[in-house]
């Protein structure tokens, strides 16, 4: 198992390297291939009606006039060794992992991202708990009562959950529960350590909105898995042996049906930790999703690179954890 984890972690480093190269290439190489020169690139980061000397100053500072390999090398070096940056009166040191300085506000990217991680993590873990428990439970009950009114109603709602985009359900939820009936008024993120009650109260709507989408998916997946599993021969054998129905369902049926759920849960959670863009945007939560939107709006390459690599890291780690969990869920799996 340990060898497996170490091997995967080494692969992760290479994967992140490749991701950084691809992202760097997309934002730097492609514009150049399309005929854009370093002067034009630099002019995006100066105010209105800049003088040519102002553009040249930015071009030089951001290193756009250097070969692409040199620019990438500087970026990669910063991650490993840190970098110095001209902040005006002094040169400031950005310790590793230094993802560079934002072109937009000239602040180091890494601390800005890290300050957003708790928001996204709070949102993702809270919603994940809701949708995992809710979606799986509804899926199991629907499968056990296949064709019943409950099953039809649950699957109908699930269909709505999958179909309705978050910016729609989110805005409706806000309008109803934050403004019309102010049960959750004046929503602003408050950290868990600062005030646990306000943290939970202000995240309740985003959690529910996000979970509504995912729970629907998980309910349908679980239902399909359970229906298939519960018709297997070993389930009939278990019942014939006289096992209590609860044990048959939970220990034999659900456990087997969980494998694909765990797989997709890992992917979903990993992706969400990289930023729940729509939910954060709708509820004005300053997490990695909103950070990403701003970075893209401003063509802020260091920020984009940072957030892409962080998201990739989360996905890879979440998958690693899922692979480990396989061994727990399915005794046949060994590493």
């Amino acid at each position, binding site marked *: 198992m340990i060898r497996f984890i170490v091997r995967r972690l080494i692969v992760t480093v290479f994967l992140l390297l490749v991701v950084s190269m691809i992202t760097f290439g997309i934002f730097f190489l492609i514009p150049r291939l399309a005929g854009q020169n370093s002067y034009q690139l630099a002019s995006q980061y100066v105010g209105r009606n800049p003088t040519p000397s102002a553009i040249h100053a930015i071009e030089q500072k951001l290193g756009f006039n250097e070969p692409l390999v040199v620019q990438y090398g500087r970026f990669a070096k910063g991650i490993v060794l840190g970098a110095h940056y001209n902040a005006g009166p002094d040169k*400031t040191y950005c310790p590793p992992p230094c993802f560079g300085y934002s072109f937009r506000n000239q602040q180091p990217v890494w601390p800005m991202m890290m300050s957003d991680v708790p928001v996204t993590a709070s949102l993702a873990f809270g919603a994940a708990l809701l949708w995992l428990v809710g979606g799986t439970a509804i899926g199991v009950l629907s499968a056990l009562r296949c064709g019943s009114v409950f099953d039809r109603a649950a699957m109908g709602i699930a269909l709505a959950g999958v179909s309705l985009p978050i910016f729609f359900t989110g805005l409706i939820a806000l309008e109803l529960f934050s*403004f019309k009936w102010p049960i959750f008024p004046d929503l602003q993120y408050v950290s868990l350590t600062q005030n646990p009650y306000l943290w939970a109260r202000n995240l309740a709507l985003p959690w529910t909105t996000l979970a509504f989408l995912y729970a629907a998916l998980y309910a349908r997946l679980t239902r399909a898995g359970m229906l298939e599993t519960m018709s297997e021969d070993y389930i009939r054998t278990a019942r014939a042996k006289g096992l209590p129905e609860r044990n048959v369902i939970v220990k034999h049926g659900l456990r087997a049906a969980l494998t694909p759920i765990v797989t997709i849960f890992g992917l979903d959670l990993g992706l969400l930790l990289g930023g729940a863009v729509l939910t954060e945007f709708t509820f*004005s939560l300053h997490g990695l999703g909103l950070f990403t939107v701003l970075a893209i709006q401003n063509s802020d390459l260091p920020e984009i690179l940072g957030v892409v690599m962080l998201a990739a890291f989360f996905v890879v780690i979440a998958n690693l954890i899922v692979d480990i969990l396989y061994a727990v869920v399915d005794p046949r799996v060994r590493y």
Partner: protein
Amino acid sequence: MKRSRTIPLAAAGAVAALGLAACGSAVKTPTPSRVAYNAGNTSVVNPSAHKGGTIIFDNSSVPDSTDPGDTYYANMWNMARLYGRSLMTFKSCPGKCGLQLVPDLATAPGQVGANGLTWTYHIKPNIKFENGRTVTTTDIKYAVERTYAKDVLPNGPSYFALLLTDPKYPGPYKDKTPGKLGLKSVDTPNATTIVFHLRKPFSDFDYVVSLPQTVPVPPARDTGANYQLHPVSTGPYKFRSYTLDKQFTLVRNPKWDPATDSNRVQLADKIVVNLNVNADTIDSNLIHSFANIDMAGTGVQAAARAQILSSPSLRQNADAAPSGFLWFTYINSKVKPLDNVHCRRAVEYAADKVAYQTAYGGPVAGGSIASTVLPPNIVGHQKFDLYEATTKPHGDIAKAKQELAACGHPSGFTTSMAFRSDRPKEKATATAEQQALSKVGIKVTLQGYPSGKYFTNFAGVPTFVHQHDLGLDIGGWAADWPDGYGFLYYLTAGEAISPAGNTNIGELNDPVVNKLFAKAVATTDTAARNQIWSQIDRQVMSDAVILPGVYAKSLLYRNPNLTNVFVHLYYGMYDYASLGRK
């Protein structure tokens, strides 16, 4: 631009009360004014001297910088007055009164030297920074020097480098002079006198020193790119905290002396600015009083607009404010066949101005149909209508065809139109004009480009424009200061054409226009100068390089918990330096 006349009496009373509402220590118990739709355009709504409370600003975006020397956003120029004082400023009052330039740190407007090349200002001797140190002209000179350091502070205007005698000054961070005060074009003979040396006469220089870039910066406290996190205050408020992209909080600055400042108040205890708040949520927050003001100042979103205009109780708290923007289409004078003025005039006649207005939100939320380049809120504006924009707003097909015949293309021609693809209003405008121009045989191909690179890579790069036959390019403009130079120069002066980031996309290089600009900047008589701006406007319209669309308006919502609320015509939004809290 038309302004509502539903509240003249209330306006008159409130205008009279304005002095107190906007006069720092002079705030007395004012005469209440009536709350009504558009009341904020011409009067002070809810005038009050009540002190205390917190004003909550929501902003759907983030400032380019909170450093007064490094910002180019109108809302930040408005906001920066809360913690920074420049040499000159715009008077805090509603209506055209707000376009008056008045001394702020200075004791009087600049004294111009005999040759027009030196401008001298004396500053009030008892202005303090938030730390208690007295402001000297050296601090202002240092602030001006910072505007040259574009590698560190890239966002702000570049006027000082363009106008002063040493354009190659590297900025204070590369300045080897002791004290880093090596900018030779600015002298500070004593602690209260500052002299600017210009390369050539520039009669608008008082406007230039009204920019927040003359807000003094104590050299010892300058942290360069990080100065935005805590600019040292000279205004009624100072920074208490700032979490980038999230929130900043201002609190009272006890060192601010209201006796020296007649354009700001210090009524609220605290000002909280929430950043990156969903735009629709901001509107709901304002309506439900979870927030007091939308910092962006560009108006409510479509959903709230409908809600506000259909509800009398909400509508009375709204103002359709002139935003100062002109939405228009450049007509490029170098792209064939639009290099022929008659072809350009055919476009002017054929365009459907009502469709233009509709695309921008209609007469209430979008604005009035424009017939000139200079909007009505710009000093020097004179109304005229060369192409029947207001008399035949759906276009004059007959005259368009006459012009087409005169340009040698009686059955029309083909060209392309650029617009910002992520701006639905521009896309709607492009589609509407495509249809309107097709009626006279002008076939337009639409080309959408991302707004972030519109000027740097596409419409603002003349070679790209020529190669891609972009004869028509949609744009919008607001002035750096409210006179003809501030509005027209970068749009129409031959000198303003640049290889990238070009804003004279029509590529107009008309000797008549250029001479008029040269004459205007050397004319110190204001009335005479204002006449020249109108002449330039007429000449540009005669050259037909700009198809005016809409003098823009924004539907602003005035939260009832605010006091001393009015639209400042220069900023095109509420005056942030006058607000208080009930």
